[in-house]
């Protein structure tokens, strides 16, 4: 059945509400391809993301989720095909996005210092920085740890710091790659709460995960990837109750896909 030949012009998923005023949406991909050394890492993916809800890219490890996310953020460039955020190219759109990679890089500074660094890079006037930092740390629940060296934080705290740092200037889109891998359940809960809060404040969430339960908890719509292809894109309700793609169905059943 579906193997990535989704036409990207039409709105395929009327059940997903469209964000009309979002500066970067819809995110449209057409025949996206990414090769390295002759190896196809992303095979001919097309999709259309228009809703302002939390889009989750779900799939087993090795499916190509991380690569797809990095293509969307512009850290790597497609070998072929098109990718646009609303009216903007990927390069133009990056300034209004923030990404939290699977292992966030924390600078060798304090917790507050990490947030301040971003503000400095984005040339935010000095007077405003202190308040922004304080607000970001509060959102992450890290206010008491403001002067601790960032790299001495626990895994969950580091993740929350990375998200807070990413969101300090209210980006239009937040991309997260497997944000809770290796975290204990308490930390997972805290991080997911942060993601919900950020999304509720108006930021579009695009995240990857291999954790079906997490996808169930967080997704408004799901893009199912397997073996470097996009197999299905549906609202969460639709996807989890009756997936159209049989590979997706097997995945949801707990089968190990090869």
């Amino acid at each position, binding site marked *: 059945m579906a193997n990535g030949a989704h036409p990207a012009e039409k709105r395929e998923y009327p059940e997903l509400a469209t964000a009309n005023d979002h500066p970067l949406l819809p995110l449209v991909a057409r025949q996206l391809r990414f090769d390295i050394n002759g190896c196809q890492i992303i095979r001919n993916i097309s999709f259309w993301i228009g809703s302002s809800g939390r889009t989750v890219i779900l799939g087993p490890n090795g499916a190509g989720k991380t690569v797809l996310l990095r293509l969307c*953020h512009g*850290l790597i460039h497609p070998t072929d095909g098109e990718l646009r955020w609303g009216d903007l190219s990927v390069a133009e759109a*990056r*300034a209004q996005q*923030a*990404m939290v*990679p699977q292992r*966030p*890089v924390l*600078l*060798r*500074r304090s917790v507050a210092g990490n947030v301040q*660094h*971003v503000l*400095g*890079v*984005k040339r935010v006037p000095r007077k405003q920085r202190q308040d922004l930092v304080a607000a970001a740390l509060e959102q992450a629940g890290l206010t008491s740890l403001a002067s601790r*060296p960032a*790299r*001495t934080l626990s895994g969950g705290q580091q993740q929350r710091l990375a998200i807070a740092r990413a969101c300090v200037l209210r980006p239009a889109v937040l991309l997260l790659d497997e944000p809770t891998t290796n975290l204990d359940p308490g930390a997972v809960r805290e991080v997911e709460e942060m993601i919900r809060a950020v999304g509720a404040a108006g930021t579009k969430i695009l995240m990857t995960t291999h954790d079906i339960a997490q996808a169930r908890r967080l997704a408004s719509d799901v893009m199912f990837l397997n073996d470097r292809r996009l197999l299905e894109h549906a609202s969460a309700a639709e996807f989890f109750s009756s997936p159209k793609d049989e590979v997706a169905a097997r995945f949801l059943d707990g089968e190990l896909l090869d």
Partner: protein
Amino acid sequence: MNPGVNEFSSAIGAAISMIVTLDPGLVEIVLLSLRISLSAVIIASIVALPLGALIALQPFPGRRGVVVLLNALMGLPPVVVGLMVYLLLSRAGPLGPMGLLFTPTAMIIAQSIIVFPIIAALSRQTIADLHEEYDEHLRSIGCTPMQSVLTLLRDGRYRLLTGIMAGFGRAIAEVGAVLIVGGNILHSTRVMTTTIALETSKGNLALALGLGLILVVLALSVNGTALVISDAAQRRYG
């Protein structure tokens, strides 16, 4: 009695008495040694730190060869540098008219050259390692190249400082080059290492050894401090 042991205990006695009485001769050569080596390190760092960062961050054709060369130059024999600087500064040489031979300036020049590859190579390594780690994050948040460099220099400051102190340790212990270009002139270009060489050549072994002990303590203190700093920074910032 074993002459070696006797020498050693007189050496410690000589060293202590010189330090306690703040022997003016000792103070003079220690201050000159410090002045020359510190100047050399500062001058070398001003060029080596940015150059190391540049090599680390800016790809260019032949970069690998340059990196190998830089690392190899760390092993440049100081006495050879001394000889080359001597030929440069001698009146018979190209820079002769400047009259710099047998002055502390000549010694600073020679030591700067010796120390430069050490600082440049270590700075390149530090920046390259940090760049590999930070690059994606810095690109993601939209750093300009200048902002990137400043971020890397700032976050690498302790490792860079350790590299600089390694250079200082090399400079203060050096004797071949400064002897050739400085001439070991009393009250002028005589430093700790050349004094040790001179006193040894006069057969005043206890005195030479005493000075040597002081030099060892000085060098160990510098290296020890560098170690403590980098250790503390490592534990604190990771």
